[in-house]
């Protein structure tokens, strides 16, 4: 599956644009602010029904205009054409159409045209708090497991109710263990299911990630991801029971899978504290490439890969490794942005792979 043609109307800085892509490598080059990343974001829209950057859809309408439209024509297995359209008018809901037929729910579209985006913002995975890492694995798992998503939503509801109950106990100065137990029971049941799925997912995911990191770094460094959960060391039932009095004095639930975290290490040390910027970048790139692999294995075909500004902070050796990697046959269509056309031309002109350059701003 690949994106053959992209048409934009009043999307971000583009008044009108029409681009025809290669099914392998496509490079957008140009100076800051010409709209390289905006093209990637338009492609992101076609896949996930939303911007990678800005959750307020109407802010992606070109200044002073009334709507934006993104049209993408995908090809799957040879000649079948699939047209995806996204239309956002001011003060109206966002509309998505596949082959001119509108979706009732956007969720039905997501996953049909899989895509993985590697962007400078990925470093938040390392630098920010545990919530962003939980959200990341949740988003990858739930893309292919609706039951997981449902269980997760239920778990979070139970958590909010249980915390509210603990607060009520403290405020009214009473305690009824029967009232707490009914929430405990739900939390134990759902927590166990989610823990098992997260564990299973990471068992498959981590070796792929390590494989990619080794490749990019040239094999000198050993990286690992450790899944830290209260449930790793004890059973959920026991944890809930043992921490009951602590929960009561804290007035919230102190144990459970909502406290899970991933610890990233490089040669045994925390990447967050001891990794260089280039090593951190390589780390998150490898995570995203592993996500690509995982998605491809489940979907049975190659997702589209977007590389936004990946050359920043990486040394020439790693850039070369990364490019040769994504040019291999297990990757499909790739979109790359770079400020320097010379640099990227030098890399690709030596390689035997179909590629296309788009020098921005586009000329009519």
């Amino acid at each position, binding site marked *: 599956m690949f994106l053959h043609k992209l048409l934009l109307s009043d999307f971000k800085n583009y008044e009108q644009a029409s681009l025809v892509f290669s099914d392998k490598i496509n490079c957008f080059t140009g100076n800051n602010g010409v709209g390289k990343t905006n093209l990637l974001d338009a492609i992101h829209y076609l896949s996930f029904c939303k911007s990678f950057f800005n959750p307020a859809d109407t802010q992606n309408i070109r200044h002073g205009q009334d709507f934006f439209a993104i049209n993408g024509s995908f090809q799957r297995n040879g000649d079948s054409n699939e047209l995806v359209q996204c239309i956002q008018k001011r003060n109206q809901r966002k509309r998505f159409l596949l082959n001119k037929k509108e979706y009732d729910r956007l969720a039905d579209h997501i996953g049909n045209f899989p895509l993985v985006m590697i962007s400078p913002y990925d470093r938040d995975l390392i630098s920010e708090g545990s919530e962003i890492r939980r959200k990341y694995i949740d988003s990858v798992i739930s893309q292919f497991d609706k039951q997981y998503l449902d269980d997760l939503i239920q778990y979070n509801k*139970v958590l909010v*109710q*249980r915390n509210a*109950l603990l607060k*009520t106990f403290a405020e009214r100065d009473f305690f009824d263990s029967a009232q707490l137990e*009914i*929430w405990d*029971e739900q939390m134990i049941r759902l927590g166990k299911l989610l823990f098992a799925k997260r564990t299973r997912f990471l068992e498959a995911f981590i070796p792929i990630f390590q494989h990619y990191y080794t490749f990019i770094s040239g094999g000198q460094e050993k990286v690992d991801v450790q899944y830290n959960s209260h449930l790793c060391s004890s059973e959920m039932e026991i944890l809930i029971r043992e921490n009951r009095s602590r929960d009561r004095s804290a007035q919230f639930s102190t144990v459970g899978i909502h406290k899970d975290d991933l610890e990233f290490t490089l040669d045994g040390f925390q990447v967050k504290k001891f990794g260089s910027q280039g090593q951190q970048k390589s780390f998150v790139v490898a995570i995203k490439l592993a996500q690509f692999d995982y998605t491809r294995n489940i979907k049975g075909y190659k997702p589209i890969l977007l590389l936004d500004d990946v050359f920043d902070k990486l040394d020439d050796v790693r850039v070369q490794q990364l490019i040769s990697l994504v040019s291999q046959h297990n990757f499909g269509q790739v979109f790359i942005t770079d400020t320097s056309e010379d640099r990227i031309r030098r890399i690709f002109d030596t390689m035997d792979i179909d590629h296309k350059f788009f020098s921005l701003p586009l000329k009519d």
Partner: protein
Amino acid sequence: MNSLPSRVFETAVNELAKLPGIGRKTALRMALHLLKSRKEDAEAFGMAIIRMHNDIRYCRECGNISDDELCSICGSPKRDKSIVCVVEDIRDVIAIENTGQFNGVYHVLGGIISPMEGIGPDELNIEGLIEKVNSGSLTEIILALPTTIEGDTTNFYIYKKLHSSAIPVTMIARGISIGDELEHTDEVTLGRSIVNRTPYESIIQKKNQ
């Protein structure tokens, strides 16, 4: 629409706009309609609401709305008093009654457990249900609460309270809607239906009853 020409009129509009599903524009339309209708009609309308509040009682047995001490369901000799269906509120009684498939009696809880909204078991009519069970005349409790996590939790609470009494507790089936295509059913419901499948034989037998 900020200021209406009459203070009295505006009060009426504001009161109507408090009703569920009624916005300000609809409230304005309703108020104008009532204003233009005959005086007797408008008075009958107002009296009906006042009388509803003054005269309606709640059934001593089940908590359903009623004109007498016992509601028409609990008071009917045709209903099987040994089967009790537990529901969240009166709307659910009406919904199940409309199916015409249930011949037992109800027990209205008046809500479901939700600490976030400050609703605990003590705010609900659960004690009344336990008393009924302890009286020993029941043969089955049917739980018909919403399929949300709060509904499930309330089911669980009731079940735990009744567990020692050894009375059979059942829950209404959840699954694919009648007349639906499988492919249009959401994955979670479909998945649950597969897990909680029922023996075909029991379905044929029920149809023949």
